[in-house]
Structures are given as structure tokens and as C-alpha cells.
């Protein structure tokens, strides 16, 4: 079985944080572009079978990316990524909101802050992401909502997911 040592995913329910680290076999500028250009984000940000749809992209500090992840049945999950700080091509910080199709932020639901950093490695680029919720309760709200909306796995779905992880 294949294990990708370049991929690390650490979740901490106590602090409400998720740390993800992944290495890519491509130059930093190219990896940066894929994270910050809508035409490129649309090609990878939502994993199969979801697809990504950009409504508006304004990549500057204070600007935002309004986008949806679209399920095969057509259901759209809208969100807004607000760019708080940008330091090309070292990193950026964002605040991630749920929204509607019109671009109105849903402030009743928890937001999360993202700190995304890009580093050169011997073979390419390493991307480190720290996602932080304001509190464990906020994270719990998102989890519960995910369960209600059916976006999260049943045990059978987990089976498929684990199969992909360990394939």
C-alpha cells in the first residue's frame, strides 16, 4: 500500500484547529498561482465528485473569493474567502465564511481563519495551512451542521474514504 509522507493532516478538537502540510513537485510561483487565481482554483479546489465555481475573485488584501462547491446533484455550497494579508509568494491569511449565492456572508455560522504558507523544498514546494476556529464550540457547530446537511460521511461513506486514503 502507498503512503504519502509528504501529506500530514492533524486535527485538534480541543483547540479547534486543523493543520495540513503537503509537498508538491512544482515551483513555488506555480503553486502560489494555483492558490490565488480563480481560473486555476476552479480546477482543483473542490475534490471529486464536487466541482468549483467562481462567482467573483478579487485577490488583494480586503478582497474576497466568492465561490461554490457544486455536488453532482447540482447542490451548491457557497462560501467566501476574504483575503486579510497577502505576502507573495510566501503566504497569505484569510477568513473563511459561509455565504449564499448572492454573496451575503452568513454571520450566524462560524467562520475560520486560514494561515497558508509556501516554502521551497529540494524537490518543489511545501504548503502549510493552519485553520483555526474561534472556539471548540464553533468547530462543533460546523461538524453538527455538516452532519445535518449530509455533507459528511456515514460509516459506509467513511469506508470509501478510508479506501481512498489507503489505496
Amino acid at each position, binding site marked *: 500500500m502507498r503512503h504519502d509522507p509528504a501529506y500530514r493532516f492533524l486535527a485538534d478538537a480541543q483547540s479547534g484547529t486543523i493543520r495540513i502540510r503537503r509537498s508538491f513537485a512544482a515551483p513555488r510561483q506555480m503553486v502560489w498561482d494555483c492558490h490565488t487565481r480563480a481560473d486555476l482554483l476552479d480546477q482543483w479546489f473542490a475534490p471529486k465528485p464536487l466541482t468549483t465555481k467562481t462567482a467573483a475573485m478579487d485577490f488583494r488584501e480586503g478582497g474576497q473569493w466568492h465561490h461554490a462547491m457544486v455536488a453532482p446533484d447540482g447542490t451548491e455550497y457557497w462560501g467566501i474567502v476574504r483575503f486579510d494579508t497577502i505576502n507573495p509568494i510566501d503566504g497569505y491569511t484569510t477568513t473563511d465564511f459561509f455565504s449564499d449565492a448572492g454573496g451575503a456572508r452568513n454571520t450566524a455560522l462560524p467562520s475560520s481563519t486560514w494561515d497558508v504558507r509556501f516554502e521551497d523544498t529540494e524537490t518543489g514546494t511545501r504548503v502549510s495551512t493552519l485553520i483555526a476556529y474561534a472556539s471548540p464550540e464553533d468547530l462543533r457547530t460546523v461538524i453538527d451542521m455538516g452532519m445535518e446537511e449530509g455533507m*459528511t460521511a456515514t460509516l459506509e461513506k467513511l469506508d470509501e474514504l478510508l479506501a481512498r486514503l*489507503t489505496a
Partner: protein
Amino acid sequence: MVRHMENNQPELDAVFHALSDPTRRAVVQRLTQGEATVSELHAPFDMGLPSFMKHLGVLENAGLLGSAKAGRVRTCTLNPDRLNAAERWFEEQRAFWQGRYDQLDGLLASLKGETDET
């Protein structure tokens, strides 16, 4: 720092730790299909039985796995209750990001003109 801990928090951490390893995730995956003997679980892995038993021990300590011995055969079962909403959500997020990054690999490869696809 103000903490609002749930009583099961240390157990939750043990579950996260148990699921942080690919071998243990594969065992959990296999057990979602039904009970299996230790030798059945061990068969797909290219590792010694003592090392494999350590992995089973981690899963058992996390409460994910139960086992019963009948004669010389030990049969393992999954305790699905332990895979509660939070753990499933985190596992899905992990897979979600993996799927997302696998696609980015493909995009980067095509941007570099290195894709093997024609």
C-alpha cells in the same frame, strides 16, 4: 485560556492518534465490512506480526477495536460508536484535502507540461 471540555476529550485524542496511521486506518476500513481474524487483518501487510499487533493494540486502547479469542483464533470487531460525528468529520476532512491536493498535483503536472495524458 478558558476551556469548555467535553468529558470524552482524552478519548477523542486517542481516536485521532489511532487514525493518524495508514496501517491502522486500513484495519479500520477492513473492519467496517465486518469482523475479521487477526491473521486476516494482518495478511495484506508487509510487516511482522509483532509490529502489526502493536497497531491493533493502539486501536484497542482507543476503544475502536474489540476482540474475542476462541481457541487459538482471535477475532476483531469495530466499535462504530467510537467513530462519532467529530471523528468522522475529521476523517472526511482529511480525505477531502487529500482529494483536493491530488487534483492540484494533476493541475501542476499539466501546467508543467509533464502530464502523461495525451
